[in-house]
């Protein structure tokens, strides 16, 4: 992966390709087409083949972890494929040809048109999420590699991660996947244990005599609170007598 500053090349076409109609993607698209490391097949064809494997894996597992920059490139292709499918449907022969080529397994083509298109039909946002992932996980038993150039063990211990260069990793996922979310959602869940306990406490106080007044006071203020029974103050006595 070359991370040098790219030089802009003036495109050969000086006008928009008007014959084709595409939907606008909801992800930022950079003008620079990033190079990938060479695979079995050289050139732009090999690049597409590498990306095809990533896109197929994404549609199959719905969440994949791979190198950051190839994942960023694959994200655009996955978004385009879904937007074409949502836009044209399976009746369009060109869209079907694209799906056939980009998804190497036949069942994934069915998944695209029968599962993902209904899922993303009314999505106002992008169809994928993309995160930066850590280079390594210590829970996987990661240990810093020993450097062969420094066979002396003492030196090696002083430079543990030297020469263990990792490319930045990314995590790519389809939205609406069945896995638990990467970040906890900010929306309050009524089924979480705290909220279940609080709601049952609410019912308990409602059922109790005289609890309803205190509950309504509490609700209008900070929220539900545990208020023990107290002897009534003088003001309350006056109000009740009136």
């Amino acid at each position: 992966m070359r991370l040098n500053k790219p030089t802009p090349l003036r495109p050969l076409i000086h006008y928009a390709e008007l014959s084709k109609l595409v939907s606008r993607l909801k992800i930022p698209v950079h003008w620079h087409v990033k190079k990938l490391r060479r695979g079995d097949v050289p050139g732009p064809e090999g690049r597409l083949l590498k990306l095809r494997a990533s896109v197929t894996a994404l549609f199959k597992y719905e969440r994949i972890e791979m190198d950051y920059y190839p994942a960023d490139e694959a994200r655009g292709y996955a978004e385009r494929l879904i937007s074409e499918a949502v836009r044209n449907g399976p009746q369009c022969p060109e869209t079907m040809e694209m799906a056939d080529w980009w998804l190497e397994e036949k069942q994934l083509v069915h998944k695209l048109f029968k599962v993902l298109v209904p899922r993303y039909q009314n999505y106002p946002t992008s169809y994928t999420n993309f995160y930066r992932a850590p280079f390594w996980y210590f829970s996987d038993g990661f240990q810093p590699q020993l450097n062969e150039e420094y066979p002396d063990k003492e030196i090696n211990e002083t430079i543990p991660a030297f020469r263990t260069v990792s490319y930045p990793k990314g995590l790519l996922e389809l939205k609406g996947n069945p896995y638990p979310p990467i970040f906890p959602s900010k929306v309050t869940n009524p089924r979480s244990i705290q909220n279940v306990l609080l709601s049952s406490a609410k019912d308990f106080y409602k059922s109790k005599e005289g609890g309803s007044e205190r509950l309504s006071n509490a609700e209008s203020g900070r929220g539900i609170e545990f208020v023990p029974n107290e002897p009534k103050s003088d003001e309350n006595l006056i109000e009740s007598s009136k």
Partner: protein
Amino acid sequence: MAFYVSRLSLGLELRRLGCKTMRCSGVDCRSSSSTSTTLAPRSLADDGKTDKLGRREKKNLMMSESVDKPDLNLRFKYPEMFPEPFMIWRNPVKEKLERKDMLARRNCISIPEFYVGSVLRVNLSNIHQPDKVSSFVGICIERKETGLRASITLRNVIDNLGVEIKLELYDPRLLKIEVLRLERRLDPHLRYLRDAPPEYSTFPLDMKPDINRSDEVPLNRIKVKLNPRPWTENWHKIEYKGIDESIDDLITNKWKARRELLRKPWEKYDLMKTYRATLPEEEMEEILTEIKDDVEEHDRKHSRRQS
């Protein structure tokens, strides 16, 4: 050509100023209800119409009020209004100003609908001519560039000599454009007529207009036979639909083998390459809604003048 600064209404989309290198629908991501649109696939939508191209019409589910969508087929009529989609060369303010200037120029002279392959007559002001006007008749072999620098190339064979003029469409010297034959060809450009026999690009200078007034512009499916080599360009490398198959007799076996190697069958699957080379449909609709009223008014005005 000066910008009409006084006409600069403050409807410029300043939110897109920062998007020079990245094409991002920033507003769309944030406010889902205002600008976002969704499409229904053919299989799942029950009601909906298909347009001339057989494409499904866009269904706007999120927006409650119905907005009149412009006819997207009009994009072929005004190709120079659509900017070059190379992101780092884009400048939304400049594009908007250029569109205003183009509409102001279209208010003065009639720039009719024509395509590559149409035969045109142009009148240019020329002080060296006795009547101050020089006219030229020729077939449009190329339509290049966008915006105010949009240009056409006309070709004719006069006295057995091929003559071409390159003409900027919004040049103030241009007095009149008249379409003598309105038709389309199979290819985006016809530069290969330079290496074809003269009968393909010979038109009399006193040619009279011959236009069938119908809805569809006729498509000329003529195949051109090329002269033997040398050529001005390597016509065998790209498969032109308008070049006859006899081109295979004009090249060597070595060239044929090389041509096989140069083919790129994977290119059509490169979805992001297509995306980077096109303007998204939403942007086309924005531009068409912007120019629609002015253009209709100009059409009415110029048709009244002619009649």
